[in-house]
Each structure stands twice: as C-alpha cells, then as structure tokens.
C-alpha cells in the first residue's frame, strides 16, 4: 500500500493540468462552471481537442490506439478535467460502443467505425431501453427480421440520451422469440439517416430536452451492421454495461460539485454569517466529504483490481449506488443552500445569449433543475435496485 503518487504519476498530473490550462476553451469551461447549456458544437469542439491531444481514447487498449491508462491515471484525468470545468465527454461511442466493437466487432466494423468515433464523424446514441423494458431489459420487443442481405427493424426505443444530436445508434433488437428472453437478442448498428427512423423528444420534469424516443418503421439495415453473432447480443450488452460503469462513480464531477457548493455556502448568509459556518449545514457537508474521500479510494481499488487483469465485476454496482446517492446528496444540499432563491427558474437563462439580470444570485437559477434532473442517475444505467440485485446475486450468492 502506498498512497503517494509515483514520480510518473506526478508528472502525468502536471501534464494533464498543462493541457487543460492551454487547450480547454474558456468559453466552454465558463459554461460548464456556470451550468449553462452546452451546444452540440461545444461538445464537438472539446471532443476534437481531446482527440488531437490523444486523450480522447487514452483508456483504450494500446492495440487500438489507446494508451491503456490504469485506474490511477484515469482518476487523475477525471478529477483534473472536472476541476477545470471540462465538459463531460459524450460516452456512447467512445466508452460504450467502442469496447464492444474491439471485443466482438468484425475487423471491417472496427476499421470503419473506430476512427469515425474519434474524429467526430459519427455521433452515437444508445438504443437499449424500450417503454416496456426498462430495468428488465431482456423483455425488449423491437424486432429485426432478416430479409436477404438486410434486417428490417420495427419498434421503439426510449430514454435515448442526446439522440437529437446523433447520426448513428446501436440497438438491442429481438431476432428470435425462442428460448429464454435473453437468448434472442442481437446487437445492431443503425445509421439514423436510414428511412423509417424518427426521433421524438421527451421533455424532462424540469423542462429540458435531453432524452428521446426513437421510432423504427420498416428500417432496412445491411446485415454487416450486425455485431458478432445473431442472438448473442445479450452477452455484448452485459459487456457494454460493465464498461459503461467504469466511470460510474463520478468522482471528478462530485468533487467539482462540492467545490461549487462550498463556494455558494461561503457567499450565502444565514443570520448574518456565512452558511458554511452553520453547524448543521457544515455537518451535512462534512459527511458528504467523508463519504466522497472514501469513495474515491473505493473507486480506484475496484478499478485497479480490474485493470490488473480481473474484469470489473459486480463490485462496480457498489460504485454506481454510492456514486449516484452521493451526487444526489450534493445536489440536495446545494438546493438547500439557496434558501428561497431555489424557487425561481428561468429556463432561457441557461442558454448563452440571455442578457437579463439573474434572479437572485447568479448561481441560483440552474440549481433546483439540476437537483431534479439528477434524480435520473439512480434510475438509468441499471437502476440502483437492479444494482442491489446484482450485488446480492453475484457478490453474495443470495
């Protein structure tokens, strides 16, 4: 055991800090820090900058052009990037589809799609959930019927995050109704410009457009867009879910959010004194900081065990639960910190170009919306209930 950074790790941290200081555009980090809405263009700009520096896919295997970052390096980058106000990288192509293609895709799929993920040609979204198949993914219904060299897709996906920006979607589809529900599922890549694909917005409870329904009506997809074998999609889906969870603890985001909260607590006054000095508020904050310091280590321990050869196992379910609960508790405390000014909400003020005076302190407007929006995190990506089932079954054998 040694909690000190090695010389290499120190050098790496310095390199990352320099990169962020030089390359992260201030207008983008400004938006992130003030919780303004990012445009598609903002995401693409940052994506390109990361790619140019070789950071975009640094966690990929070396044989696919990555640098094979270990858990410590990923932690350092995550924390530094969040502290600097870097946007979250859209993960669907880079962190979810790419590992599946590397493991199960054909050479053609790899050589066609991986470069286009990196260079931003294709913006991917995820077609997993369906209206009747949320936590119980295996009950999905969307069908893909083989017809010559093509599959014909019919059905509906939902909760498709940023589907409005995407031009490709990877889908779980049903290619067979034989056997157990898990058995007839296939993993399919779909160009969203294909006729019959329609994206409809879902407005979230705080009024934002972030997720979508994607409808498929007689969508014809070339058979070579099938990943791996027909009816083996469940295996690939589970593999993807494990990789999806590799950043699930959200340590960097949580640390940055706590700094934001502390800044607010220093500015807000309660009975004439900074809220940060209020005994109850300080106690709530301190508990979160204690939990977060522990979770950062838990995250690195679990991820290091995985990168040392063992696959990230059901332990990541603990990170999903703890990470989301902690992040939500930061949201909750931030909401409380504002007092009555948590109530006003002017949606337009989240867009750049809004020029009116803020209502109350300039940090107030997005806070309650953010609190409500983050309720999703314990629901999506396998709800926390599903994670507890996984822990019960796979870690405890119950």
């Amino acid at each position, binding site marked *: 055991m040694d909690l000190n950074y090695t010389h290499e790790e120190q050098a790496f941290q310095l390199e990352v800090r320099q990169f962020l200081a030089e390359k992260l555009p201030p207008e983008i980090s400004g938006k992130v820090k003030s919780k303004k809405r990012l445009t598609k263009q903002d995401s693409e700009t940052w994506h390109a900058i990361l790619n140019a520096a070789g950071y975009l896919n640094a966690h990929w295997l070396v044989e696919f052009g990555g640098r094979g970052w270990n858990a410590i390096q990923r932690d350092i980058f995550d924390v530094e990037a969040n502290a600097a106000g870097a946007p979250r990288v859209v993960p669907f192509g880079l962190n979810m589809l790419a590992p599946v293609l590397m493991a199960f895709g054909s050479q053609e799929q790899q050589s066609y799609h991986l470069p286009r993920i990196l260079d931003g040609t294709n913006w991917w979204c995820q077609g997993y959930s369906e209206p009747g198949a949320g936590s119980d993914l295996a009950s999905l219904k969307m069908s893909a019927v083989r017809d010559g060299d093509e599959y014909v897709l019919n059905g509906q996906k939902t909760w498709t995050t940023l589907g409005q920006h995407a031009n490709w979607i990877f889908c779980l589809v049903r290619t067979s109704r034989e056997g157990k529900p898990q058995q007839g599922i296939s993993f399919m890549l779909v160009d969203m410009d294909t006729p019959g694909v329609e994206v409809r917005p879902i407005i979230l409870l705080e009024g934002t457009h972030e997720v979508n329904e994607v409808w498929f009506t007689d969508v014809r997809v070339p058979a070579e867009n099938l990943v791996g074998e027909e009816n083996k999609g469940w295996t690939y889906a589970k593999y993807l879910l494990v990789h999806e969870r590799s950043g699930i603890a959200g340590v960097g985001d949580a640390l940055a959010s706590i700094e934001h909260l502390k800044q607010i607590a220093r500015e807000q006054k309660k009975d004439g004194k900074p809220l940060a000095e209020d005994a109850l508020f300080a106690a709530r904050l301190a508990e979160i900081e204690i939990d977060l310091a522990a979770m950062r280590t838990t995250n690195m321990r679990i991820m290091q065990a995985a990168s040392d050869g063992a696959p990230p196992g059901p332990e990541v379910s603990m990170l999903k639960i703890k990470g989301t609960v902690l992040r939500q508790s930061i949201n909750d405390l931030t909401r409380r910190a504002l007092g009555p*000014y948590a*109530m006003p909400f002017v949606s337009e003020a989240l867009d750049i170009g809004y020029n009116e005076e803020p*209502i109350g302190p300039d940090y107030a407007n997005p806070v309650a919306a953010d609190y*409500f929006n983050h309720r999703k995190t314990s*629901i999506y990506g396998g709800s926390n209930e599903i994670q507890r089932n996984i822990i019960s079954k796979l870690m405890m054998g119950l």
Partner: protein
Amino acid sequence: MDFSHTEERQMLADMVGRFVRDEYDIETRHANARSDDGFSRAHWSQLAELGLIGALFPESCGGFGGTGFDISVVFEQLGGGLVVEPFLANLLAGTALAASGTHSDVLDEVMAGNCLLAYAHGEPASRYSLSQVETVAQKSGSGYRLNGNKAVVISGDTANKLVVSARTAGGNDATDGISLFLVPADADGIHIRSYPTIDGYRAAEIALKDVEVPADSLIGVEGQAIALIEQVNAAGTLAVSAEALGAIDVGIEMTLDYLKTRKQFGVPIGKFQALQHRMADMMTEREQIRSALINAAGNLQSDQRDWHMSALKNLIGRAGRSIAEECIQMHGGIAMTFEYAVGHYAKRVVMIDHMFGDEDHHLQRIIKLGAIAATAAATA
C-alpha cells in the same frame, strides 16, 4: 380531544376535493400555469364563489373559518390538485389584514374574489429570517416613502395590492421597528419582475423606489408588525405543509397504482419485497406528517404554535422530501418526464422546503424554543 373533523369541515374538504377531481386535471393545471397570469381567473372566481377564500378567515372579519383546521383542510385539497390559483398569497396578505383588524373593506373584496393580494416580506438577503428587513419607510408628509427590494414574492406579479414590510425604526435585524403597509401594486415607483418557479407557480422580484403611501396604508401599529408577521408566517407554514401532504397523498397513490400495474421480470413490481418495505416506511412517515399537521393546526392559536409549526415543517422537509424522491425512484424513468404527473407532485413537495424555512431552519428553531412541554400532543 377529538381527531375527527366536524361535518362542516368535512363538507368543505369534499367540495374542494370534488372540484379538483372533476375540473382540475393535470393538463388543466399546466394550462393555467402557462397562461399569461400564471393561473385561471375563471377558476379563481369559481372557487371564491364556493366560499374557499372566506373559509380562510374568521367570522369576525367576514369570513366563516380561519382556524388552523380550516386552513389545513383547504390547502391539503388544493395540494392534491397542485392548484396554481393564488390562495397562498391571499391567505398570507389577508391574514395580516385580518389579524390587524385594519382594512376590512379590502379583505371583503378579497373574499369576494374581486381583489388579489400578495405578501411582499422576504428580501434578497433575508433568507428565512422574519426580522431581517432592509426596506425602509420614511415619514413623508402625513404618509410614508418606501424604498427597498422584495424577493420571491409569491403571486406578486398579478396582485392588485401588496402587503409590504418596511422598517420604520431599528437596525437591519431588529424585531422592533418593522411596519406593514398596504400598497397598490401599480403605485408609482414599484417595479415588478415576474418569473415562473421550478414547480410551476409564479413569483416576482419587487423593487420599491420612493413609493409614496398615505398614513392609512399602515397595517396595525407602526413599528410593531413582528407579531403579525409571525402569525402570517405560521399560517403560511401550515398552509404549504397541508398542501405538501395533499401532494404526497397523490404521489403515494400514483406510486401504489404503478406498483400494481407495471410489470418487470414478468410480475408487477409491487411484488418485489424491497419496494414493499420502502413503501411501508413511506406510509408510516405519511401518517406521521398527517399527525404533525393535526398538531400544528390545533395549535395555530396556542402558545405552542411555533414549536408545532416547526415540527411540521421539519417533517415536510425531511420525511416529505424522502417520500417525493421515492415516488420518482419507484416509478423509474417515466416519473422523470414532464408529461407524467407524479414528478410535478414531487417537485411541489420538495420546493415547499424553500418556503417559510427549510428542514434545518425549523430543526434549529425547535432547539431554540426548547421542547420539554411541547412533546405533549395535548395543548391542555
């Protein structure tokens, strides 16, 4: 001691409940909220005619209610419909008038549905403090000149008259020296900035710049308004807490229905014991909130008022918020959508934590008040 409602009060509850059920579905509510006024004047008039405003004030002021139980019964039902019409604002401002015994003509107009009030007390820096008033009222001729800024004034954008607190003496945080004034919303020097709240209601920032008001706009005694303000605050705390319970009832009901109908892994998700047990705890906490509401309503006029109001509001912020979050979590993704109603109920419950003091504010007030006698439910 008796825990059942009188017949009249039960009829009042049923009447409001019927209105919500029959004429105020969630789409109507959203339409009202999105309208220019942020509420429906037709619905407001209809409810005024049904006597709903009169129920909030005592007979001595021309109303026919005004007790804690009248207020809690009305607002609990309004909460069940997330009703956006400005009952709260008029309860607050009206309570100031009723308790002071001044401006009874205005209160009559309010109860008739012809005049809308709002209560402009909070300020940008006051948070939940009742005595931190920086707005000043200087003597000016026979009247006063008001200067200052009022923050998050509920329904402040559509009111005809404002009840405004201002300091006629004393330092920024002194309890003495605060006065209340009844001010026409269109008086010279008043600037009202309207905005929506995250949960679908309307509020305003109100700037007063050299607003001249006559001497008789004073409500109650000059410099002695703190007792009125505390009384308004208690009535408001009771009202929004009752509203929260009404919203919680709907949230739990919807969640129970969902647990019985939504299937995952081939069975209704209500068959999963982990959800059952959490739901059982929610049911228990809901009854605790109901009890705290009863305790608070029964003590609105007693010397234990503040303890019970704080106990209630703390529970709304603590148990109520937890229930709201669980209603979303148990529904899953659908509860995250604007289209589905449960999220709106959850939003209202959570945002009520930001009115009249949050969970921690009231916990600390309980500590200040001491609690030895107050753990007794009985007022006797």
